[in-house]
């Protein structure tokens, strides 16, 4: 199956069950999904349908209760915790709804964090951080603390932190959820720019306007994929069509 080898992300029959106080929640109930290198995928669906859970599993923050996951053609089930941390660090970039910048660190230090965990030498670190901040247009705020920035600016810093280590995939969980529409659009434009530069992006949003930025939209409902517009169209073709349809 050549598709499996091509795909950056390949999941099959993914289940995730949470057991709390003897109540079982089937957050994910049989997900089949494959994301190719260079793709820009949007995941949407009502609150509680399992979007964040799926993102966490894709980002190796969580493990599925059942099912298989290949990242870059390698099964991840057998990885040790420290190998998973290493892959998170090198292959995955996260952007969160609430930015999650560390308040005690400056913008520069926040962006630098993944490189520190990777033990990149300091000269190279400085250069990469500079480049990442340039890409999101925040280099003039490098010495500021997150609390001194607006929400949109913080999210751009978070994006810089996510891409600074040149990850294979960028996972963004409702990156515009806490932003006003102007800042939201700016962040979306930035993501589109990153995608053009070659980053694979998987983004959760339930704002139909922003879903339109992606090439492909996956709809989740009750832990299942109920609609995947790639199922009917090739990604390349879907771009224009989706935008037209959504816009």
């Amino acid at each position, binding site marked *: 199956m050549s598709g499996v080898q091509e795909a950056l992300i390949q999941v099959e029959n993914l289940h995730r069950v949470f057991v709390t106080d003897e109540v079982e929640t089937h957050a994910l109930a049989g997900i089949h999904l494959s994301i190719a290198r260079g793709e820009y995928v949007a995941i949407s669906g009502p609150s509680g349908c399992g979007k964040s859970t799926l993102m966490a599993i894709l980002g190796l*923050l*969580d493990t599925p209760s059942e099912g298989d996951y290949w990242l870059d053609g390698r099964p991840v089930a057998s990885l040790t915790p420290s190998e998973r*941390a290493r892959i998170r*660090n090198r292959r995955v970039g996260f952007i969160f709804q609430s*930015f999650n910048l560390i308040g005690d660190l400056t913008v520069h230090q926040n962006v630098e*964090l993944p490189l520190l965990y990777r033990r990149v030498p300091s000269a190279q670190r400085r250069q990469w951080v500079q480049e990442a901040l340039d890409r999101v247009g925040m280099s003039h705020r490098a010495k500021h*603390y*997150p609390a001194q920035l607006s929400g949109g600016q913080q999210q751009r810093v978070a994006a810089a932190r996510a891409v600074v280590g040149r990850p294979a995939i960028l996972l963004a969980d409702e990156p515009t959820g*806490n932003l006003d529409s102007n800042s939201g659009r700016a962040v979306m434009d930035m993501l589109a720019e990153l995608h053009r530069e070659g980053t694979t992006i998987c983004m959760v949003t339930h704002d139909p306007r922003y879903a339109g930025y992606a090439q492909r939209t996956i709809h989740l409902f009750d832990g299942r994929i109920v609609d995947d517009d790639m199922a009917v169209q090739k990604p390349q073709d879907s771009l224009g069509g989706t935008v037209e349809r959504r816009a």
Partner: protein
Amino acid sequence: MTTLWQDVRYGFRMLCKNPGFTAIALVTLAIGIGANTIMFSLVNAMLFRSVHVQDPDRLVVCKDDNLDLGYEMYTYMRDHNPVFSDLVALDRGPHAATLVWGDVSKRAHVMYVSSNYFSALGVAPARGRYFLPEEERLDAELVAVLSHRLWQCQGADPEIVGQRVSLNGMPAQVVGVAPEGFTGATLVGPELWLPLGSGMRVQYQLQEYPLPQLMGRLRPGLSMSGAQAQLQSLIPRLRENFPRSCNNHSTLSLNLLPRTVHSTQTEGDRAYLSGASLFLMGVSAVILLIACTNLANMIVIHGITRHREIAIRLAVGGSRWYVVRQLFVESLLVALLGGGLGIVLAIWCMRVLNAWVAALDPEFPLELARVLTTGLDLRVLAATLGICLTATVLFGLKPALRLSRRDVVADLKESAGGGVMSTRSTRGIMPRGLSVVFQTALSVVLVMAAVLCTRSARKAIQTNPGFDLQGKLLIEIDARAAGYDPARSVQVCEAVAEHLNALPGVQMAGLSCDGGFGGSVVEYAPGVESDTPGNLLARDPFVCPVGGEYFESMGIPLLQGRTFCRLDSVTDAEKVLIIDEPLARRLRPDANALGCLIQYGWRSLSEPHRIVGIVPTLHSALHNPEKRAHIYLPMGPKHRPAYIHLRLASDALNTEATLRQMIPAEIRKVDPYLPVLSVRTLMDCQRNDLPVWLRLMGARLSLIFGAMALFLAALGIYAVKGYMVASRTPEIGVRMALGATRRGILAMVLREGAILTLVGLCWGLLLAWAVARVAGSLLYGVSPLDPVSIAVTIVVLGLASLLASYIPARRAARVDPMAALRYE
């Protein structure tokens, strides 16, 4: 009332819901209260415990200067003075005497007092009566009043009055028993009181009436200064009546009764006691500080974790007063429960302390330790409880007030999540980080003190006196009390020693006498008879007559020459002696002083003695603090042996206890009349030596309190680190998402803890150094900057704080990143 009850119930529920918080707060309170109660009870016992006499404030000491105070003058003053309603004379006792009571013989402390002593102090006898005026006379029949404790120890015979005891061989009739707890005007009393006039017969060395010391009770309404003025009017009359004892410079002055442990207590003892008391109070203050810091932290943290609950309460219309009251009730509950635990802890510790004191050798000097066998002082307990209650409630109330003043909307928004994490909490953490530093520093001081005291006590115990203490028994006898003259005494004791020597397990038995200080020591030069200078020693040597087997029985090796033999004590034999090595070096730089002739004491009175042996010096800084030289004489017919030394065979060490018990009976087989005062191992003698014992006690106390401080500080570090980790859970989640490994997170939290610990350690060591410089005089044999103690302190504190932050760090490393990120 019902709302209060609801508050209490709700408070209990909240405490049960946060078992960690509750446990730490309760333990902290308990230790704080317990430690302080014990400390202050001890200090109270040492410094402030009142003596059991009526109106001690009206008692004064009358000091005389340039006055040859004798018994006649005392009686004149007693009967002709406008100042005292009672004037009491007492000798500067207490004197040790051999008390024989049936077949029990022991050393007892006796005080000689005027017959009005008890009535002046205002105490009624528990049994019998006190002294009659005529019993004060020199030729009166001997009568004695027993202390309540002695009476109890000897079986509390209800028919005690009228029984006969023997004191230094003199028969005396028991006429009464003093009331329980009565110790005279000092904290520790004698075991027996005898009338002033009996001193001469019982204490061999006393001439006539013992030199009295005057204590008086001021007439009612007379002030101290008034009394002082009126007293001066007495001087001219004294000069008139006692022209030979009184001159132009004679004065009398009044002093308030000092709160002394003992009437012979010296300034030095008192300084030691007040130094030790200050030290104890300082220690308890430090523990209280650590405990309060812990409490404040716990309650503030507890309050912060409840922001949201409180915000919701306020949002749904709860009044501020309601919130304050609820938090107030909760902290009161904590304080009361903790206080209860503290009392339990204090009682238990007091029991342990009393057990230590009770385990003491009955021969323990001056019974000083028994002063400490007090129960808990209720006032102290109440005061400590009060302090802790106030502190808890204040600390509890402060966040309550602040919380209730909070901006509800901001709180709700904030806890609804979003934005930047942890900037706000940074400000909250800093003071708590500081509190970790503060607590660490304080506990460094106490741990260091504990280590130093322990090492000091070990040094004191282990000081090598120049011979092995193991397997040596010391038997104290009193041949004089048996009525033997010196020659007979030597005969009897030699027979006893010979008999003991034949016992299985005894390797060698030797004899020695009470020694004394021997004046100057000069090398004999023929023809020089006058007391010209040439003294070899800065301090008088200690001169001790010993038997021939003494050195071998003590295990003191002979460096040169020989020990004494029987012929050495024959009347017209050459006078010989054995000296110690330092003196030998004074005589001959190469210590080769055998055969030299020396004279000691007054040269004109002293015959030259030939040195026949040299032994090592007795290195016990505690027993021989001034490093006096020792001179040993052969025991002759003029000397009276006071000790029998037994050296046990090495295979008899385990039968030491049985041997000890047999010895009095074995001695009675040889001579039924010889009182055996004690049979002790040299180890016990060393341990029961007052300076050693005080240091041992100090070491134990400081260990307990050092451990308490360490435990409290570790709890504090644990609580603060735990809170820091909890409040940083989302941040930890982010770091994990960015690729931090669990080990990395663990290391991060530990590293942050280590930095605080390091800063605390540095401050603490500085502080400890300052304290040790001030309190260094309480130490023995270790420098305040003892590197071993410093190292031990650093290691102990480092380990404790590592452990205390390891648990929260592990919790941090176990954070589920997904759950952590869901918080936001």
